[in-house]
């Protein structure tokens, strides 16, 4: 049996199933008792509102893992991840290493990312995944579809490592077909969302959808794009990228975050190290040109990569 559900429902289903499966799973976050009334109803004190205290929220999450629980911490906007950065990079990701493997930190930190075209402005429109990518010990997931979101979130909750799970706000309106039966999607595996021959496009979240749209249009012009959804940024599925580039000989990365020092750089660097000989064209990165996200929608659009940007850059390299 297959159903169509939206991104938000997918997330809630994943949380519910995992909370039923494992009584150690609980969730804290601002206003979550109000946002998830059904979960609150069913799990009562395992769904807990918090005050505006992002730093302690993640610190409390880490502490709870040390005493046998498996917290999900909801951070309303990823603009607030810098507030809990210390607990993510200095604490959560190091627990396993500190203890020499004897103790782990099974925590999921969820946060919303991305610009929406609704004037959310400089802070809450960010895609700040790059701030935490150079932090081995963390896993970082960024799903693109409700199906992936459900399967990946279930894996994240079961994972014994701290996982940051980034949900693009514009995806809330997306739907996908989801099986009735339980399923999980392993972390660390990229997904080829479209098979192609001429160029490899690596993207995630909202940019994955723009890339697919670009690929559709380019197809009509005779350009065949392979579109890879990384899904997990850390640890990275190098193989899928390298295999694809060996086939297409061309690589484009697409990201909503600023170009310099973003995730696309790592993809380019991996290929420049491990598949250099296969490259027939410069590796191009479609990205925010290096600005905050202005509040005025007209200006916001000017700094978020568009389908046209992806098409233009693709044509430059094929």
């Amino acid at each position, binding site marked *: 049996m297959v159903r169509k559900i939206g991104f938000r429902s997918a997330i809630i289903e994943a949380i519910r199933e995992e909370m039923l499966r494992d009584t150690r799973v609980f969730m804290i976050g601002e206003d979550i008792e109000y946002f998830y009334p059904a979960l609150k109803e069913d799990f009562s004190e395992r769904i807990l509102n918090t005050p505006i205290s992002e730093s302690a929220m993640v610190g409390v999450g880490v502490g709870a893992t040390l005493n046998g629980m498996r917290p999900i911490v909801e951070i309303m906007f990823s603009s*607030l991840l810098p507030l809990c950065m210390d607990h993510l990079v200095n604490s959560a990701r190091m627990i396993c290493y500190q203890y020499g493997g004897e103790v782990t930190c099974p925590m999921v930190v969820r946060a919303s990312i991305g610009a929406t075209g609704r004037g959310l*402005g400089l802070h809450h429109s960010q895609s700040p995944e790059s701030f935490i990518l150079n932090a081995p010990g963390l896993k970082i997931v960024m799903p693109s579809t409700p199906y992936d979101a459900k399967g990946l979130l279930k894996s994240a909750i079961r994972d014994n490592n701290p996982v940051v799970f980034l949900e693009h706000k514009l995806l809330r309106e997306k739907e996908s077909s989801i099986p009735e039966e339980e399923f999980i999607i392993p972390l660390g595996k990229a997904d080829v969302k479209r098979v192609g021959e001429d160029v490899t496009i690596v993207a995630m979240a909202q940019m994955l959808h723009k890339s697919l749209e670009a690929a559709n249009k380019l197809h009509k012009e005779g350009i065949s794009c392979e579109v890879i959804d990384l899904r997990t940024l850390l640890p990275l599925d190098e193989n899928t990228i390298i295999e694809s580039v060996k086939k297409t000989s061309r690589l484009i990365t697409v990201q909503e975050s600023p170009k310099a020092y973003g995730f696309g750089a790592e993809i380019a660097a991996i290929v420049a190290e491990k598949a250099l000989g296969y490259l027939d064209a410069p590796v191009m990165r479609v990205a925010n040109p290096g600005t905050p996200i202005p*509040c005025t929608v007209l200006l916001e659009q*000017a*700094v978020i990569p568009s389908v046209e940007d992806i098409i233009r850059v693709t044509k430059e390299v094929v």
Partner: protein
Amino acid sequence: MVKMEIDNQDLLEMFRLMLLTRRFEEKTQELLPSGKLQDFCHTCIGQEHITVGACYNLKETDLIMPSLRGRGAYIARGVPIKTLLAVMYGKQLGSTMPKESVHHLGLPEYGILVGTGIIGSDIAKATGAALAAKLRGTTQVVLDFFGDGASNRGDFHESLNLAAIWNLPVVYICENNHTAMSTSITESTAVEDIADRAGGYGIPGVVISRNDIIAVHTAVQDAVYRARDGEGPTLIECKTYRWSVHAGLPSLESRSKEDIEFWKRKLGYPIMDLKKELMMRGILTKQEVSEIEAKIRHDLEEAVEFAKKSPFPVVEEALKHVYA
């Protein structure tokens, strides 16, 4: 220090500023469904007296850091409503194009510090502005506004402690509207009065227990005098209530109509109560209220026209001013 009675003229002006703020906020709520506003409306309806009462009578060189619910502060500082509306419409503002949302817009010419969308963080910035005032040897005072929710952030703690040890000229004003988004204050802290936290830093804490602009104005003025005299910071908690939905989004409303009515009655009506008082004292007539309302209505219409007609920025603006 001698307590001064507030002049009738000042009371009337505060009344007008509150009313202008209220009507402005109502107008933005009315315009919101058009989809043309490029901002979320964190209106201060029911809380106008705090920012207006606090900012009224500041010196021009003083600085303020508004909370997200700080429209009254902008208006009391003299920012033209057409400027505010133009920013809400996403329009170019003179020669500069601030890329910030109107609810934490910085306006140097009005002594308004730029904020962020990060609740609580601006408390540290306001404290830094006060440190600069002290180091520069000015007589500036900084008013810092924030919500009850913000007072649970670490920056509140670190900043008030710093202001206390450095004896900074800053007045912290907590607009305790008993709510942060959908979360009631009874869920977010176990303490009765946020002002009690002042004791943890060795600074005075003051509670204003009603929606009373005269009480706010007086308490803030006392604290401003203290600050200017080098006696350091004060924490003033104004008990109030959010009358409207959060961020203009009805889906974020968790409170019942009855609750809101209960709190209105309990804490009082900032504008209506002052109006009654002024009429009782014979300072204000029904006729004059109508005239003020009419003028505001007219100015608001003009401001909407101005905002609509103002030019959009050129797209290249988006790429400018990342670096100085």
